[in-house]
């Protein structure tokens, strides 16, 4: 490596500074990196949402108790259900929703009139399960045996459907990412081929002077790597404001940091971006550089096979 350090930094024997069109390649790679950043945001965002749903809903049950105030065996029905729930190991919490909370739940369907309407609403108990809890069917059966008419609804089905949806969305985002990477590789390959055609004579001369394929490929690859890295950085930077706006829009759903979502100041906005995205954004220029390096190496080495 020492001898390479001694090589004059601006020594450009193949004249690639002019041949490997920098502006176009830079712009195209930047565009690819921008798209990749959006796709990455999709992957990260959907995963966060899915995790949030699963965490929130996977361990939750809703128990409906019709006619809660009726007496049964010396207790109100609701008190009996709560007592049974408290006796079951693995039930982390069982909380009866207040009248206002119920009204809040029903508001989308019944508007503000829910409380005023003469519907006898069942009491609703929100149950959180910890590890070691019986499965929802067993639990439901025990409650129904103790207090007939009790309905236990697990959110598992919805979580399953949402997980499937989230999985498909994530797969789409990964696919988009792969397509973007492939297009970036194609762009670099085309630029490299144009550079090879433009510098054919110089390459033949250098080849005739005993340059190995590796020597020539390294020349192209280092230029392509540099341009792709800069392009990737520019694309990632350009995507940042878009991602911040998206993160702000998504914040209420993920409810990860509601306070950050509410605060529109710059710093809080930066904080709204999920940490995995902060980790992956700097990877974009590196990934672009890797694509540039590998593509240029492969393209040049394949092209050089035509020389003896």
């Amino acid at each position, binding site marked *: 490596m020492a*001898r390479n350090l001694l*090589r*004059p930094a601006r020594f450009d024997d193949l004249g690639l500074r002019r041949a490997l069109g920098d502006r176009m390649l830079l712009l195209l790679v930047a565009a690819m990196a921008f798209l990749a950043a959006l796709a990455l945001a999709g992957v990260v965002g959907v995963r966060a949402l899915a995790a949030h749903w699963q965490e929130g809903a996977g361990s939750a049950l809703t128990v409906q108790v019709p006619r809660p105030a009726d007496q049964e065996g010396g207790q109100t029905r609701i008190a009996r259900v709560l007592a049974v729930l408290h006796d079951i190991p693995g039930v982390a919490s069982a909380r009866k929703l207040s009248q206002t909370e119920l009204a809040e739940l029903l508001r989308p369907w019944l508007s503000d009139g829910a409380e005023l309407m003469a519907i006898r609403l069942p009491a609703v108990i929100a149950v959180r399960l910890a590890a070691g809890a019986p499965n929802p069917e067993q639990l439901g059966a025990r409650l129904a045996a103790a207090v007939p008419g009790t309905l236990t609804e697990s959110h598992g089905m919805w979580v399953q459907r949402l997980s499937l949806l989230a999985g498909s969305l994530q797969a789409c985002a990964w696919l988009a990412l792969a397509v973007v990477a492939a297009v970036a590789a194609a762009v670099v390959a085309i630029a490299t081929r144009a550079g090879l055609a433009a510098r054919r004579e110089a390459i033949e*001369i*250098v080849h005739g*002077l005993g340059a190995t394929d590796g020597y020539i490929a390294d020349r192209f690859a280092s230029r392509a790597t540099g341009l792709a890295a800069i392009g990737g950085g520019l694309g990632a930077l350009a995507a940042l404001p878009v991602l911040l706006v998206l993160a702000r829009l998504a914040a209420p759903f993920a409810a990860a940091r509601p306070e950050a979502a509410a605060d529109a100041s710059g710093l809080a906005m930066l904080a709204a971006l999920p940490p995995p995205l902060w980790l992956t954004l700097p990877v974009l220029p590196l990934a672009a550089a890797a694509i540039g390096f590998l593509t240029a190496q492969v393209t040049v080495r394949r092209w050089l096979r035509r020389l*003896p």
Partner: protein
Amino acid sequence: MECVGLHYRPAGGNRAGHEVLRDLSFDIPEGGFRWLLGPSGAGKTSLLRLLHLAIRPTSGRLTVMDTEVGDAGRRALPALRRRIGMVFQDFRLLPHLSAYDNVALPLRIAGRPEGQIRADVTETMRWVALDKKAKSRPAELSGGEQQRVAIARAVVGRPVLLLADEPTGNLDDIQAERLMVMLTELNRLGTTVIVATHNDALVTRHPGPALRLNNGRLLASG
């Protein structure tokens, strides 16, 4: 260096092609000198390209510096080429590099340390009397000066085999004479030298063994 039974059709174009060289057989001992003579189109340049490993023979066996070129893999050739100096008829200098960088190119490709490169290139450029034009680009040099840059580039790596295609084509008689003195000196130091020319006066002044080509055939050797 020996070259046994050589039969070559140009690469590219139609498969049959036309034969440029036919059944050449000759042997040049290490440290030997040969004129390569013959009219234009006789195949002198093709023979030099073969010896420079720029093309491979289509038939026959070509051995350059103990390496059988037909059998050698692509990876083996660059190291071999670095031991061969070639002066092209059309110079083939890199137009965007200075004369100095053009001469330094073979050494940089060989990965020599920059300090040694500076010493060798400076000395070689002085040898061809171009030390004052080190920073000029080929376009700023006369034909004769460009030819001398090409010669300097061919000899700077102290090649084992030196091939020259019409090296005096752009030189006046005095410069041509100087070049012949340089080539003789290199030959005396152990470099095998093959010079293609149709400058008969030069050959008369510097008699030596010759390979005579005509129409792709070897008429005389030695």
